[in-house]
């Protein structure tokens, strides 16, 4: 260590202009990175620590930070043992994520396979399927609330037309969550299609040719080549969209606002209400940390699965 420092010193003595230039470049590099580093510290890293601190207190955001009463783990205990709405929100969010992600993977992969099988007009189809992805979830919520309306919605008109009785959909505690899941499928399937198409195009054609020579049929080629080679893409899709789904807010806010009777209440929506309607910042922060923990666990599971996969191969 000392030796290298001495050496560096000697070099800088013997070649001052170069070292000067080097130092100047380094200073510029620090200036360049300092802008976003400071930003991420102020708006990301410090807030997460602060949020953890708040979750151990009772706070309405009006009293000074220094005077928040300490409550220890009380917020967490309350949420996990007494807050029925939170429990309901957890269940709803999980149903939403599992239903949405599973349907989207199946539909997305299925449509990607179709689009990838030399169909004409690929880019046109891709654009059409992608339109909902770039549409504000808030607007989609409004459109779906309109289409699934009990009295004048398009879907009920179709149902009545084919002899099925009118359904309450978003105004039914038993059906609303499924309509929300349909919305999520509608919004994101185009995104899955694009990722899966890219993944499919990354699989070398040689593999399929070789398998065909060996007499494998389309079904076998799918199960033995496509699916195993698509596994990393599949994992990426499942995990990023699970993480996204766990944070669902806009879609629900604009279509049901969590109702009827909390049947579409989600974690982030409940957190939003707890914090900004009822000014319980401590409890809302604890909620955020529980959700963050859930997301971390899911991510760790993903890394495990990925590692297992690479170890085996």
């Amino acid at each position: 260590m000392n030796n290298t420092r001495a050496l560096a010193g000697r070099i800088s003595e013997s070649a001052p202009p170069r070292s000067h230039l080097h130092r100047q470049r380094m200073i510029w590099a620090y200036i360049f990175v300092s802008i976003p580093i400071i930003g991420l510290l102020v708006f990301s890293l410090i807030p997460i620590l602060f949020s953890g601190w708040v979750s151990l207190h009772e706070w309405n955001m009006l009293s000074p930070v220094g005077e928040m009463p300490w409550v220890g783990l009380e917020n967490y205990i309350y949420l996990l043992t007494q807050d029925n709405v939170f429990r309901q929100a957890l269940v709803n969010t999980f149903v939403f994520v599992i239903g949405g992600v599973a349907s989207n993977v199946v539909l997305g992969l299925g449509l990607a396979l179709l689009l990838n099988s030399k169909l004409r007009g690929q880019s046109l189809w891709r654009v059409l399927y992608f339109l909902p992805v770039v549409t504000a979830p808030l607007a989609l919520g409004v459109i779906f609330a309109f289409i699934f309306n009990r009295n004048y919605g398009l879907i009920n008109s179709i149902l009545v037309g084919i002899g099925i009785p009118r359904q309450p959909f978003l105004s039914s505690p038993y059906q609303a969550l499924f309509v929300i899941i349909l919305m999520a499928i509608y919004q994101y399937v185009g995104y899955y299609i694009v990722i899966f198409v890219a993944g499919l195009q990354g699989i070398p054609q040689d593999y399929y040719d070789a398998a065909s020579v060996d007499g494998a049929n389309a079904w076998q080629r799918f199960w033995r080549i496509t699916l195993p080679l698509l596994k990393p893409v599949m994992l990426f899709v499942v995990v990023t969209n699970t993480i996204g789904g766990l944070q669902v807010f806009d879609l629900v806010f604009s279509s049901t606002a969590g109702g009827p009777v909390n049947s579409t209440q989600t974690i982030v929506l409940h957190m939003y209400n707890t914090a900004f309607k009822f000014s319980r910042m401590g409890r809302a922060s604890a909620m955020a940390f529980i959700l963050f923990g859930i997301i971390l666990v899911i991510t760790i599971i993903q890394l495990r699965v990925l590692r297992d996969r690479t170890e085996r191969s």
Partner: protein
Amino acid sequence: MATVERSHGNNLGSMSLTAVKYAVVIFGALVMIAPFLWMMNASLMTSAEIVRQPPVLLSAEPQFQNYPLLLDVLPFPQLYLNSLIITGGTVLGVLFTSSVAGFAFAKYEFPGKNVLFYLILATMMIPFFITLIPVFYIIRQLSWINSFQGIIIPGIFSAYGIFLMRQFIMTIPDELMDAARIDGASEPLIYARIILPLIRPALATLGTFTFIGSWNSFLWPLLVINDRDMMTVPLGLNSLRLFAAEAVNLNLLMAGTVLSVLPTLLIFVFLQRYFIRGIALTGLKG
């Protein structure tokens, strides 16, 4: 003879298979655009026509005046302008902070580089909802409630953007920079004159993503903006949604929804190649 017949049968089979494939894809595409078409159609109806049962497929007379009527209720030009300022500021900010830091991480050696880079990557893991309350508190302490910077500034630091830019800038040969240095160019000049022009495609990709995300964002503006004159398009749509809770104003609600979704749809249709490429890129990198 037998083989000829069989291949004939296969052709028929593969042709009908292709027909089924097209049928599925076309049906799917219809399902995808039907809500948009239905919304546009309803925006040109009277409210009475919208709620009539059995449903009316087309208005007896297209109600184009719904749009001017809507503008009396909700000042869309103002909403567009507000959203444009916020989205424009956010896009420029993200492009600047991401490219400048990505440049430093890709092309310079400095002590602590790896630690700082991993720190930035780690912030990618932090979901928005966990920083919501603290950042709201910071914004309030700064008296940035009801201000555009209260929305823009927290949104211009993107770990994902820095990562994307670093990956892209790493592919630019050092020789270009060295040549400029010999000509006496300073480091900021190298960034502005050599790096920025070369990373235009990456900037376009990141810019399109940021534009759509920022334009559509709802929760954060909902917290920061209370002033009607400063509302963004999604906030306007939200207030219209509450205003049109009664069936009487459904036509206006649908017209407002059309005006809300149109900008991102147009941006996407024109810039889709950047968008699709960006998604394929991130999808496969994972």
